[in-house]
C-alpha cells in the first residue's frame, strides 16, 4: 500500500518557516496536487517527501514504513525510497543517450542485462520514445525531454511518482497533451501521483484531490469540484479562478455595496459565511447576469469581444467587475446603464486578502 502520510511536518530555512505543521494523507493510487503561488512551500514539501530535505518537525510515512522522522533524526536516503521523480527542468543527462537515461535506475538496481533491456523498452514504449532511443537529449525537443524524464521515472515501476512542475517548461498545447499522457500512464500502471504546480487549471484537470497552500500553511484540501465550488477562504477563491470581490455593508436588513448606495440593495439573500455588518461578496465572471432593468445598478465601462464570450468591465460605485457573457446574449453598449444579478455568489468575513 502506498498511502503517503505526513503528520505535523514543519520545515524552516533560517528564520523563514517554509512549511508549517502540515498534516496530510495521500491515498493509494490517487493523483494528488499541491497547488499554490510560488514560495508557498509546495516544492519544499515535495522535496521532503523525496528525502532531499530533512524535517524540522514531524514525520513522513509511506504505507506502514517511516521514511522521515525528525524526533528520531531518521531519514531514509532518497536513493532508497524507490520513488519515481520528474523535475521541472527535465534533468535528463545530456551525456547519455535516451536508452541509457531510462536504463540508469535499472542498472543501479543491479538487474540482469535481459531484464534491463526488457524493462527499458517497456518504459520507452509506454512513453512513445522507442523510435528515438539511440538519440541524445540535445537533439530532442522539450516535450520529448520530458517524456525521457517520465520514462526514467516509471522504469522501476514505482509505487509513488513525484512530479515537480513537470509541465511548466512546455508550451501550452504540449502541456495539455502531456497532462493526458500522465493520467493515462497512471491508469495503466497504478502508481500514486504527487503533483506540484502553481497552475490552478492544470491542478483541476489532473487531480483526484488537491491541496491549496499559502505561506507554508495548508488552506484547503478537497476534490477539484469542492475547491472550485466552495473555496474556504477569500484567498482560495481568488487563486482558483477568475474572481470579483465587492465589499458589502448591511443596513436595515439589506446588503449594500460599500461606497455605492445609489446602486441599490442586493436582491439575492445574504450568502452564508458572511458574518457581521460588513462582508465581502465573491463571484465568478460567468455567474453574473446582465439586464437593462433591475438588479444592482452599474455602468458598462468597456466591452471586449473574445470569440465565444464577450467580456464586460462594469463599474459599480468605486468598484469594477469583470463579467463574461455568451457572444449570442443581449449586447450592451459601452457607457450604458446595466443591472447585475448574481446567479451564484459566496460571502467571506475577511475584507481583504491578508
Amino acid at each position, binding site marked *: 500500500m502506498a498511502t503517503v502520510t505526513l503528520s505535523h511536518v514543519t520545515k524552516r530555512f533560517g528564520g523563514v518557516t517554509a512549511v508549517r505543521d502540515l498534516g496530510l494523507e495521500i491515498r493509494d493510487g490517487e493523483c494528488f496536487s499541491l497547488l499554490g503561488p510560488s514560495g508557498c512551500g509546495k516544492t519544499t514539501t515535495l522535496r521532503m517527501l523525496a528525502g532531499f530535505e530533512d524535517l524540522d518537525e514531524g514525520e513522513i510515512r509511506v504505507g506502514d514504513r517511516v521514511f522521515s522522522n525528525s524526533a528520531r533524526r531518521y531519514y531514509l536516503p532518497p536513493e532508497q525510497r524507490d520513488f519515481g521523480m520528474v*523535475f521541472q527542468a527535465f534533468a535528463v543527462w545530456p551525456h547519455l543517450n535516451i536508452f541509457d537515461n531510462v536504463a540508469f535506475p535499472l542498472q543501479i538496481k543491479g538487474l540482469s542485462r535481459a531484464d534491463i533491456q526488457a524493462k527499458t523498452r517497456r518504459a520507452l514504449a509506454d512513453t512513445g520514445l522507442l523510435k528515438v532511443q539511440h538519440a541524445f537529449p540535445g537533439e530532442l525537443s522539450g516535450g520529448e525531454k520530458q517524456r525521457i524524464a517520465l520514462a526514467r521515472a516509471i522504469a522501476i515501476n514505482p509505487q509513488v511518482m513525484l512530479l515537480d512542475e513537470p509541465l511548466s517548461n512546455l508550451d501550452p498545447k504540449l502541456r495539455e497533451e502531456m497532462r493526458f499522457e500522465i493520467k493515462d500512464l497512471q491508469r495503466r500502471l497504478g502508481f500514486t501521483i504527487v503533483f506540484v504546480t502553481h497552475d490552478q487549471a492544470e491542478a483541476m484537470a489532473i487531480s483526484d484531490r488537491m491541496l491549496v497552500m499559502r505561506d507554508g500553511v495548508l488552506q484547503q484540501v478537497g476534490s477539484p469540484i469542492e475547491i472550485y465550488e466552495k473555496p474556504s477562504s477569500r484567498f482560495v477563491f481568488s487563486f482558483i479562478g477568475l474572481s470579483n470581490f465587492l465589499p458589502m455593508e448591511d443596513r436595515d436588513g439589506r446588503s449594500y455595496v460599500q461606497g455605492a448606495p445609489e446602486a441599490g440593495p442586493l436582491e439575492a439573500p445574504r450568502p452564508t459565511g458572511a458574518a457581521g455588518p460588513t462582508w465581502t461578496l465573491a463571484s465568478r465572471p460567468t455567474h453574473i447576469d446582465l439586464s437593462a432593468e433591475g438588479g444592482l445598478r452599474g455602468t458598462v465601462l468597456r466591452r471586449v469581444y473574445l470569440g465565444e464570450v464577450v467580456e464586460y468591465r462594469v463599474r459599480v460605485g468605486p468598484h469594477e467587475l469583470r463579467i463574461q457573457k455568451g457572444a449570442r446574449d443581449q449586447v450592451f453598449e459601452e457607457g450604458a446603464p446595466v443591472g447585475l444579478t448574481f446567479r451564484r455568489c459566496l460571502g467571506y468575513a475577511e475584507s481583504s486578502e491578508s
Partner: protein
Amino acid sequence: MRPRRFGTAELLLLLSILILVVVVAIPILLIFWNAFVVEGKPDFLRALALLKEPDTLEALKNSLVIAGGTTVLSTIIGVFFAWLVSRTDLPYKGTMKVLFLVPFMLPSFIGALAWKILLSPRGGHINRLLMDLFHLEDPVFNIMSLGGIIAVETMYLFPFVFIQVSGALERMDPTLEEAARISGAGLFTITRRITLPLMMPSILAGALLVALYSLAHFGVPAILGTERNIFIIPTKIYEKIYASGGNFEAIRTGTMLSSILVLSAAAILYIQSLVLSSGRFQVISGKSMRPMVLKLRGLKWPLLILSVVYIALTVVLPTVTIFLVGTLKTYGLAFKLENMTFDNFTYILFKWELTRDAIWNSFYLSLSAAAVTMLIGTLISYVLVKTKIRGKFLLEFLGVLPFSVPGTVIALGVILMWSGRFGVNLYNTAWIIFVAYIARYMAFALKSTSAALEQVHDSLEEAARACGASKWQAMKDVVLPLIKPGMVAAFFLIFLPALRELTTSVLLYGPHTRTIGVAIYTLNEDGETVYAAALAAIALVIIVLGQLLIKRVTRAKIESA
C-alpha cells in the same frame, strides 16, 4: 537613404583589418617565411634538417614532457580542490576558494626563483637544512630538473583547471544529480557516472589552457632549466637568438621552433573549441538550489589541513623566501636580524639606475599598451559584433590569430618585422616592446570587449535611434556607457600581466629598456640573487596593490549599478 559604397562601417572594417595585419598577421607570416623559404624558394627539407639537430630535438622532447606532466598534474590537483570546495562540507570553503586562486596572481618566474633558492641541489636552503639534520651526503630534492620544472609550473597553472571546474560545478543544474539519486544511485556512483562525465568539457578546457601556457612559458624553465642544460622550445629560441648574435641559421632555427609553437597552440585551441561547442554537454541551470554536499565527517579537518598546507607550501613559503632573501646584506648569510637590511629596497627603488629604469619602463609600457590595446580591441569587437558588412569574415579570421600566438613567437615576429627590413627600425627601443605587447594582449581585449558588446542587444541602439539620436549619439550615450565595464576589465586584464611580463620582453630588451621581469631575470643570471629577490619582492607588492585596486574599481562599478 542615399546609396553608399564606402561609409563609416567600411572605413572601420578596413582600419581594423589593417591594424591586425600589421600587428599580428605580418609578424607571423614572416616567421613562417623565414622558416620555410630559402632564397625565395620553399625549402622544407632544410627546415626539417634543422629540427633533427640533437639540441633542438632534445628541446622538443622536453617541451612535450613538461607540458604533458604539468597538464596531468594540474588537472588532478585542480579537479580535486574544485570538488572539495564546491561539493563537500569542507570548513571555511569560501576562504579556501579565494586562497586557491592566489597562485594565479603570482608570476611563476618569481616562484621559480624562490624555489631555486630553497631547493637547488647544493645551495638550496631546505636541502642544506635536511642534509645537516640527517647528516646526508647528497641533497634530497633537485628542483632544477624536469620534475622540478613540472612541479613549479603546476603550482601556478592549476588554477586554470580549478576555476573552470568549480565554476561548472556551481552552474550545474543540481536536479541532474538529484535525478540520479532518486533513481537509486549513491554518491560515489553519481560522481563517477553523472558528475564527472558532465564536468569533462570543463576539465578538458582547463587542461588545454594549462597545456597551452606550459608550452609557451619562458620564465620557469629558464630559471630552473637553462643552468642545467634543460631547454624547452621558448628557452631554446632565446638561446639561439642570443648566443649567435643574430646569424641567419640561428634565426631560422628560432623561426622553425616558433612555427611548431604556433601550430601546436592552434591545434590546442581548435580542440578546445570543438570540446566547448559540442552541445551534448550543455548543463543549463534551472532553479538555483543548493547542490548536494558530501559530508566529509572524519576527513573534514584532515582535508582542510591538507589544503592549508598546500597553500602554505606553494604560496606563503615562496613569497616569504623572496622577501627574506631580499633583505640579506649578502647572499648566503643566515636569516638573522643582524644580517638583514632595508637598504636593498631603497637602493633598488631610488638609487640603482638599472632597476629604477626597469620599474619605470614596465609601468609606462604596460599602461600605454593596456590603454591602446583596449581601444583597438573595442573598435575591432564593435565591427565584429555590431556591423553587418561584406568582408567581415576576413576580420573574423584575423581576430582569431592573437589567441594562438605564444609570447616568444610574437617577440621573434616583431624582431623580424621592425628591425629595419621594412624601413622602420625599432630594435633596442621601447617601441618594439610596446608593439609586441599590443599583439600579445590583443586576445584579452577582444575577448572581454566582444563579450560586453554581445550583452548590448541591438534593440537598445535601435531604440535610441527611434528616439531621434544619430548613430554617433546612440553610440556615445547608449552603447559606450553599457560596455564601459567590459572596457575597464580589458584594461586591467592587460595592464597587470604586462607589468610582470617576461617571455616576450626578454627577447626584445635593449640596454635601457629592461622591464621588471627582465631585470629580475638578468639579475638572477648574473648571480645577484639578493637584488633579484628584492626587486621580485617589490614586484609582488605592486601586483598585490594592483589586484586590490581592481577589486575596488570593479566593486564600485557593481554598487553604482
